[in-house]
């Protein structure tokens, strides 16, 4: 991200804002439907995660798929600004119940995404299909389709909330579809597509089983489509069956990753490796809690599931990957420019990485506790501010080290 620092390295600032919201609105975690909880979720999902994931896509596409984005720097800069403004407006609108801000946020997010998707699809369609037998390019395409569907449900929700658009579907159903496509169709498939390459590459593990990489993402898409059709047509039992299939598929991915990690050829696991492992355990924990929340009406369970999946699984895995991808790409851009690149450890030293990831583990514990005991929310808020502020500082350090090497 040295050649193109646009999207990704500023993204943790959304996490800092999320921490402040938690600090200022301690009742946020009373249920998944409180306005501050909706603001928090969107600061993390549409702010932090979306920016990092799109930024990583811009950077990862050329390396793993051999696809180059047309004018990536311009696309990155423009879509970064539009998406950042959209995420902030949306979070503000949801948190303060301000219909105009909700609509403006959704419109900006949609515009930023359209710009990005137009460029990414062109690059991905031009990418060679079978590069080293990797399923990653295909699954990246699926993830972008999942993102488009998530955004469509999001825009519909914004129209319902701000303009009173009447739809023949219950609002909670629409919210579940939006969240489900976001978690698995976009986030899960993108995480898996990236993991197929990044986990064996940086964690020195064997490759994922070919059967898993061949069938996992298509199976997720089919199950999501079945769930969507059943939910929209009001067929409760098929919807539950498809939902269970999705839980099993998500668990399969986490278990396969943990098994690979246990067979790593690394002599001692580094901080990023341990953070990724924690993320997979958090995913499994989140799935169990999600299952429990389908069986009871206890309001805290969906909040805890959200914390474990969003912050534990996605937040943890994203941080762990950033610590590998950012210094590697900085190194690569320097080398490709014919500049003698500093050692990767100089670009992003071990000490601050390890300590920041320890704060992530602490903030995950505090947030999980606060999901059950909302009085703890301010503690979690402070830890979130520290965690994301520090992540930002560490990434900025790597970007700056890259710039220094350029002279």
């Amino acid at each position, binding site marked *: 991200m040295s050649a193109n620092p646009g999207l990704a390295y500023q993204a943790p600032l959304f996490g800092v804002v999320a921490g402040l919201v938690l600090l200022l609105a301690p009742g946020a975690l009373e249920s998944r439907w409180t306005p501050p909880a909706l603001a928090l979720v969107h600061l993390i999902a549409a702010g932090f995660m979306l920016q990092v994931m799109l930024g990583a896509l811009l950077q990862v596409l050329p390396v793993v798929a051999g696809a180059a984005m047309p004018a990536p720097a311009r696309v990155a800069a423009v879509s970064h600004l539009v998406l950042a403004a959209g995420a902030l407006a949306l979070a503000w609108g949801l948190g303060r119940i301000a219909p105009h801000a909700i609509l403006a946020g959704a419109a900006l997010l949609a515009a930023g995404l359209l710009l990005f998707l137009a460029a990414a699809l062109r690059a991905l369609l031009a990418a060679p299909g079978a590069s*080293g037998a990797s399923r990653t390019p295909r699954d990246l395409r699926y993830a972008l389709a999942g993102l488009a569907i998530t955004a469509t449900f999001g825009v519909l929700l914004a129209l319902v909330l701000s303009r009173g658009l009447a739809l023949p579907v219950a609002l909670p159903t629409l919210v579940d579809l939006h969240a489900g496509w976001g978690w698995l169709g976009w986030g899960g498939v993108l995480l898996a597509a990236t993991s197929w390459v990044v986990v064996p*590459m940086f964690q020195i593990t064997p490759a994922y089983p070919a059967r898993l990489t061949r069938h996992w993402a298509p199976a997720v898409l089919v199950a999501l489509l079945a769930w969507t059709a059943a939910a929209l047509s009001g067929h409760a039992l098929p919807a539950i069956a498809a939902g269970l299939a999705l839980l099993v598929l998500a668990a399969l991915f986490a278990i396969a990753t943990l098994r690979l990690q246990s067979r790593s050829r690394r002599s001692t696991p580094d901080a990023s490796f341990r953070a990724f492992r924690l993320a997979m355990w958090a995913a499994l924990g989140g799935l169990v809690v999600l299952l429990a929340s389908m069986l009871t009406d206890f309001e805290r369970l969906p909040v805890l599931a959200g914390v474990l999946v969003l912050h534990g699984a996605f937040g943890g895995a994203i941080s762990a990957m950033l610590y590998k991808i950012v210094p*590697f790409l900085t190194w*690569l851009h320097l080398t490709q420019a014919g500049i003698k690149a500093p050692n990767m450890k100089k670009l992003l030293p071990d000490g601050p990485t390890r300590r920041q990831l320890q704060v992530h583990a602490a903030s995950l514990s505090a947030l999980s506790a606060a999901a059950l005991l909302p009085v703890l929310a301010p503690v979690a808020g402070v830890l979130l501010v520290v965690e994301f502020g520090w992540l930002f500082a560490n990434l900025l350090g790597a970007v700056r080290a890259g710039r220094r090497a350029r002279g």
Partner: protein
Amino acid sequence: MSTVVVDTRGLEPPEPFERAMEALVDLKPGESIRLLLDRMPHPLLRMLDRDGYRHEAQVREDAVEILITRP
């Protein structure tokens, strides 16, 4: 004509890239490198194209093999 074998399997990035670059520095006209990797090195291939090296990739069960020749 001699061929140097550079096996980078099991190394953490960017070491495979660095090993390949080191081998290229020592490569004389007409000589070639048989580079063994865990995956297709798209960034390296782009650099080889830019710098005028000839390369042929072969995807095998246990490795990606790139034969690099200096024209």
